[in-house]
């Protein structure tokens, strides 16, 4: 991006956080209502793309958790696999999900292995799609004149 867009630059900083918070809301909401890991991951990718538009793909990649889309998505898949493992303790099949509640006095905190799985999906989608989107943006940022495709006959 040759001319730095000042407004985009300034707005991107707070907006990055806001978009990520929104993605977390969508993620947690998915427990009982429309939402969930996949959509939340897509929302998170928009934050990365926003950062890439303002500061370049390399900076956006550095801002990802673990600083690498590959590691991020691998951690996501790993979480998904791990969420299926506690079933082993109860002699159930792999990926049998467990629910429980932790009493907090005034209310109770509902926990489940499904949430772990959903977080895994979230990280995996974020990592994989940010990887695609950033490499597309990267390819788009270096258009030298002689690299244009030749006109077809």
């Amino acid at each position, binding site marked *: 991006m040759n001319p730095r867009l000042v407004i985009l630059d300034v707005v991107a900083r707070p907006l990055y956080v806001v978009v990520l918070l929104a993605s977390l809301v969508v993620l947690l909401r998915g427990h009982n209502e429309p939402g969930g890991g996949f959509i939340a991951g897509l929302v998170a990718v928009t934050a990365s793309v926003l950062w890439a538009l303002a500061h370049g793909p390399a900076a956006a990649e550095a801002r990802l958790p673990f600083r690498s889309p*590959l*590691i991020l998505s*691998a*951690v996501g898949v790993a979480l998904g*696999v791990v969420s299926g493992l506690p079933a*082993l303790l109860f002699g159930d*099949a792999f990926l*049998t*999900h467990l629910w429980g509640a932790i009493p907090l006095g005034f209310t109770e905190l509902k926990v489940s292995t499904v949430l772990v799985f959903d977080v895994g999906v979230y990280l995996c989608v974020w990592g994989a799609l940010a990887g695609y989107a950033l490499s597309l943006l990267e390819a788009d940022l270096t258009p030298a004149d002689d690299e244009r495709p030749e006109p077809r006959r």
Partner: protein
Amino acid sequence: MSVWLAASPVLVPLATALATALAYRHARLQRLLSLAGIVAFFGTALTLVATVQGGETLAVAFGSWPAPFGIEFRIDRLGASLVLITALMGLACLVFHESDADPGNRHPLLLPLVHGVLAGVAGAFATADLFNLYVWFEVMLIAALGVFAIGGRRDQLDASFKYLTLNLLGTLLLLIGVGAIYAATGHLNYGALAEAAAGLPPALTTLLLTVLGLAFLVKAGAFPLFAWLPASYHTLPGPILALFAGLLTKVGAYAVLRVVGDVFAPPPAVLLEALGWIAAATMLVGVLGAAYHWDIRRILAFHIISQIGYILLATALAGEAGNAATLFYTLHHIVVKANLFLIGAIVWRLTGSYDLRRIGGLWQARPWLGVLFAIPALSLVGIPPLSGFWAKYLVLFEAIGQGRIVWTVVALLVSVLTLYSMMKIWLEAFWRPHPDAGWTLPRDARLAPAVAATVGLAAITLWIGTQPEALIAYARAAAATMGGAAP
């Protein structure tokens, strides 16, 4: 415990893929993890075969959703033997990759993607759910595409685009077929489908199986849907090419066998007739394509197609004998085909090219390599006492028994033409002197892992050839419990 064993064909390679991906900044650690993972996979696959060879099947319903509704893995003798051969190929090719015979570009993503391909292949062999089969085909496709594209050379990008387009259309056809079958029967589980299939009108079954079968034939590389295979395979680095050549098309052939020979058995006769003619055309076209080429990899890539024809022919013969012949042929062929590609990579390292017009003189320099090449090459042709002889014997005996004289004649003719191709490679690469008089063997070649892998695979070929009874008995036992067997 059996639940975990049944899920291991996917869990072990997937865990290895994750571990190698997380270690992508440390090349040595990544290679160690990859080797440890493939050894563990081989170990669990051996346990799997040992468990099911008595006739029991291992099943797991993921997430405790019971069988007709949830996704089920059900591993019988057919699936277990194919999972074992998948692990064996992974082991041989990854050990080979430790040598410097055409390892290609050691990209940090290569090993995770290769284990991803193995997970996809093994998942397709293990699953008992039609939609899940589609998912494993896609896992295989995505991981294989990654392997194609990370090389980054222009011909590799070109190859991966063609591979992507044609295979993606194949999987979409599969998806449409799966949807249509679900609409017609309300089931996706193999067991439930087998029960529901009996109540379908034959015309509808024919239509459904045609859509599904066409999708699998794209994946298997059958005539006339094989264009993606010779367009792309030869751009891969040697050991990866051997892995792909050994396994990927065979998943398509396995899916045809599973659907036609097990779930929907016995299928409408017109489908088997059509499959037989497609098989004959596949054999012939593949071998003729090979005769034209001078690049070792391209010759062998066309021979994949021709050999797929034999496997499909065995499936088209149907019944217990046909299904047993299909399994035996597939197991033999995977070992032999991968070994030929691996030896081709050694030839490349020693002579500097895959093009037969530029190489020669290996019989003088490395006579043992000539013998090593002759074992899988003659086995591919079907010369006794090698494994290919028994595989072809089983297929052709059944074909003659059913009075399929034209198919038999085509198969024998293709064997002769296969011999021509193998002799061409042998004469040009080994017997003839090197075209460059000043050529010498490279001094610094690090070939010990490559030789270990190829000698191991050749030993398996020899073992099957001299002791075929055990494997034939296993294949017959596997076929006896499939749907095509007489009750």
